């Protein structure tokens, strides 16, 4: 599809861009500034700008572990979301018929209830002497004193659950527009459903896959609340570290530095990923 040249593009982009510049870029700029403040500053003594790049080195040394963990959990959650989400989106787009819109809203409806309540429910379900754990224990998938809560499993499950819609909706949006006759053609040309899927459906749905994975991975990797409620000290994610550095320790420079690193890191990964997927033109 051809991209039109000319100023209309700017015109369309302007409002959103302006908004983001005002309410994101400027704050982000002050964030970067903060990350270079002298770490010995405090609300009592004030902060002075000493371009203290050391902050970055320090936080990396200090917190590389939760950083990696975040990326890892984020990736896992994204992966599971992709699998679950694709099935669901595909079913809605091609099989739901007249129930399309209903199913679509059903996907998101559970998320109109408060996050906290949902998580409390999960805690009830996954409770140490809840039936799921018992079940898994009887199957000896879990040890006798094994548990789900406060384990990586619980955290990833929480992430997967809470970010599923961010995967499904974009996926649906792009699967829905695939011309069914192409899939028929593939079948006619000896592609069994599986091959047909990977040779035709999948490539044609790539825009959705890209968007979906981005919408899932980026916030999931930055999330901390799931880790805090469903995980323990050993599952903390970088988001949580930033949270506590900021609110509890009031170590604003470190918090800022860590944030910047995290953002840049995630975005970098994203770009690499998009290049890998060979879909720059989608950006």
């Amino acid at each position, binding site marked *: 599809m051809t991209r039109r040249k000319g100023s209309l593009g700017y015109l369309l982009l302007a409002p959103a861009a302006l908004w983001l510049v005002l309410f994101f870029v400027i704050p*982000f700029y002050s964030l970067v500034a903060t990350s270079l403040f002298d770490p010995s500053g405090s609300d009592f003594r004030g902060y002075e700008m000493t371009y203290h790049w050391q902050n970055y080195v320090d936080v990396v040394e200090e917190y590389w572990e939760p950083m990696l963990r975040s990326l890892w959990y984020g990736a896992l959650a994204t992966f599971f979301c992709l699998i679950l989400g694709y099935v669901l989106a*595909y079913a809605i787009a091609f099989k739901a018929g007249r129930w399309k819109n209903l199913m679509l809203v059903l996907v998101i409806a*559970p998320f109109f209830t408060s996050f906290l309540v949902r998580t409390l429910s999960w805690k009830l379900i996954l409770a140490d002497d809840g039936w799921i754990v018992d079940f898994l224990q009887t199957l000896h998938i879990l040890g006798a004193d094994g548990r789900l809560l406060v384990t990586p499993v619980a955290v990833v499950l929480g992430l997967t659950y809470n970010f599923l819609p961010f995967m499904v909706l974009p996926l649906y949006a792009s699967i829905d527009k695939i011309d069914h006759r192409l899939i028929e053609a593939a079948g006619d040309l000896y592609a069994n459903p599986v091959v047909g899927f990977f040779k035709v459906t999948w490539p044609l749905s790539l825009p959705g896959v890209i968007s979906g994975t981005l919408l899932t991975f980026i916030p999931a990797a930055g999330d901390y609340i799931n880790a805090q409620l469903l995980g323990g000290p050993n599952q903390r994610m970088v988001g949580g570290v930033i949270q506590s550095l900021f609110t509890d320790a009031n170590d604003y420079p470190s918090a800022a530095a860590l944030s910047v690193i995290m953002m840049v890191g995630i975005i970098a990964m994203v770009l690499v990923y998009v290049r890998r997927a060979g879909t720059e033109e989608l950006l």
Partner: protein
Amino acid sequence: MRWFRNNLVLLLGIAVLIYTFIPIAIVILMSFNDPDNRLVYSFDGFTLQNWLNPCEPDGMCGSLWTSIQIGFLSTLFATILGTLAAFALVRHDFQGRSSSNLLIFMPMAAPEIVLGSSLLALFVAAGFAGQLGFWTILIAHIMFCLSFVVVTVRARLAGLDDNLEQAAMDLYATPRQTFWRVTFPLVFPGILGAALLSFSLSFDDFIITNLNAGNTTTFPMYVWGVSQRGVPMQVNVIGTVMFMISILIVVGGEVTSRRRNAKLA
């Protein structure tokens, strides 16, 4: 058996849906809960009390109303701005397209706490310290919903061939008409998805909201607050109602549109 094979995907899809419903089931159940103790979240007995006076807990319904208003407004604006931007990014070529893309992704990656407080700092610096509340929350929500809208709409827009738009133009449709009569209907699923996402995002956001709320209270803020002293079961009522309403709206829409079609045919 063949039926089963043909509908396998649909069945799997429904299975996934059910997975997303598990917690809701509990929420619905809990909305009928008669708790022995307000600190403990467990089903102790059946009652209709929660349904009969859902607004009993101090300030809950007020905060809910605030959240709904903010949810709708931010969804509206974010969806409009975001859709426009998505069009710009997919359909147009201009200097700094790729950097605009970065600009779109950054907010999604920003940790809420720092983002929220930098934003607060901005408001204070701009002398809005006194006016913190509804509007500042709205501004913030639009800001972080935008990215999600853009990316979602783009998923629909990418590779959508422009033959049909050309046909429309050829049939005297001005760009605006072309958009509303042809492009929009074709892109609608994407926009709908984006809108739904924005609403759930806005409706569930705690940290950024909390920082910029002044002494306005949104529903999530309320829930976080009370959770310290035990969640009142009415919260589940609200959850259930929100869930039901969203479904009713769709079903209603479906039915009416069917009727209209029926009449036409």
